[in-house]
C-alpha cells in the first residue's frame, strides 16, 4: 500500500505494522455499503484525521464534513464503531477495537453522501421546539441585571453550551422510533429558555414542547446524556420540562375554573 511520505518534522511516523483497518460507509440516501481502507496509525490521531487521510491519500471522492476541528462547531459527528461521536475530538486509540474502526454517517438523519448527514431536520426541530429568544427589551435599553446565582440562571447555564452536534439526537432510540420527536438537543434548548429570566412568555415555551412531538415522548433512555461530548445532560433538562408542563397543566386548569 501507498504510504504518505512522512513530512520533515513528523516525529510520529510509525512502522508498517501499525495499520488501522477502517471501514467507511459509502453511498447516498439509503443505499450504500462499507468499504475498507488501511490507514497508518499515528500518535495523536483523531477519527477525523483518519477520515481526512483516506480522502487526501487514498480515495479523493470520500465525502464528510468538518469545520472548526476543535469541538466547537458540531459539524463532524459520525457513527464510530456504532456509537455517535464528534470525530475531531475523538482519539483513535480510545475507540478502536482490535485495530479496527467502523465509521458511518450520523444515525437518525438522512445521509447526503458517504459520511455527510443532512442536518436540516435537526435544526427544523430546534426551531419548532421554540428554541429562539423573543426580544424582551430593545437595543436602546440597558442590559438586564441578572445575578449569576439566580437559580434559573444556574439551571439555564447547565445546558447552554450545546454545540448542536446532533450526537444526542443520533443516540436516541425515541428519535428513531418517532421521527417527529423533537429530540434531546432541541428540548434542552427549550429548557434553557424556560429558565432564562429574560424570557417573558414561559408558557409559550411549554406549549411548544407539549404537542404530539414534544418532551412527553421521551422515555428517559439516557443515551443523550451518555453520549453528549460536552457532558451536558439533556435527560434532566427534558425531565425538567415534563415537570414544568405537568405543573402548568394542573395549575392552568385550576385557574381556568376560577
Amino acid at each position, binding site marked *: 500500500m501507498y504510504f504518505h511520505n512522512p513530512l520533515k518534522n513528523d516525529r510520529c511516523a510509525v512502522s508498517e505494522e501499525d495499520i488501522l483497518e477502517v471501514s467507511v460507509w459509502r453511498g447516498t440516501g439509503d443505499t450504500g455499503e462499507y468499504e475498507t481502507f488501511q490507514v497508518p496509525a499515528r500518535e495523536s490521531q483523531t477519527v477525523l484525521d483518519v477520515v481526512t487521510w483516506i480522502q487526501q491519500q487514498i480515495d479523493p471522492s470520500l465525502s464528510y464534513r468538518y469545520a472548526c476541528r476543535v469541538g466547537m462547531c458540531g459539524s463532524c459527528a459520525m457513527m464510530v464503531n456504532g456509537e455517535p461521536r464528534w470525530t475531531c475530538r475523538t482519539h483513535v486509540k480510545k475507540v478502536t477495537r482490535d485495530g479496527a474502526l467502523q465509521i458511518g454517517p450520523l444515525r437518525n438523519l438522512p445521509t447526503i453522501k458517504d459520511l455527510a448527514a443532512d442536518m436540516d431536520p435537526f435544526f427544523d426541530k430546534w426551531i419548532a421546539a421554540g428554541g429562539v429568544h423573543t426580544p424582551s427589551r430593545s437595543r436602546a435599553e440597558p442590559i438586564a441585571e441578572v445575578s449569576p446565582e439566580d437559580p434559573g440562571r444556574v439551571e439555564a447555564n447547565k445546558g447552554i453550551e450545546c454545540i448542536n452536534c446532533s450526537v444526542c439526537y443520533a443516540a436516541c432510540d425515541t428519535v428513531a422510533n418517532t421521527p417527529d420527536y423533537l429530540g434531546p438537543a432541541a428540548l434542552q434548548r427549550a429548557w434553557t429558555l424556560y429558565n432564562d429570566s429574560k424570557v417573558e412568555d414561559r408558557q409559550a415555551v411549554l406549549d411548544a414542547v407539549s404537542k*404530539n412531538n414534544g418532551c412527553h415522548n421521551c422515555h428517559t433512555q439516557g443515551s443523550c446524556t451518555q453520549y453528549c461530548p460536552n457532558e451536558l445532560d439533556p435527560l434532566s433538562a427534558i425531565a425538567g420540562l415534563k415537570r414544568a408542563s*405537568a405543573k402548568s397543566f394542573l395549575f392552568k386548569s385550576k385557574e381556568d375554573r376560577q
Partner: protein
Amino acid sequence: MNLGLYMAQRLSAMVMVPLVFGHLGVMIYAIQGGLTTAEILERTMGSLWWFLFYGCFVVAVSIHSAIGMRVIVHEVLKLRGLALELVMWAFGISILFLGARAVMAVTML
C-alpha cells in the same frame, strides 16, 4: 404523545402505586400466612371497600395501559392517525370491560 396523554398516563400510574402495593402485600401475606384463595375470596365478596379498591385499579389500569400500548404500537408498528386512536380506545375499553367483569366476580357474587 402530548401533555394530555402524558398526564393521564402518569396520574393513573400514581393511583395504581398504592393499589398495587396493597395487592402484592395481600398476596404475599396470604401465601406466606397459608391463607387459601378461598379464604381471600370469602373476605372480598360483598365488600364495598374491595369493590372500590379493585374498581379504581381497573379504571386506572385501562387508562394507563391503553396509553402505554398506544406508545409502543406507534413506535414499533409506526401506526398513526385514526388507526392509532382506535387501537388505544379498543385496548382501553377491552381492559375496562374484562376488568369490570373480574371485579364483579371477585366482589359481588
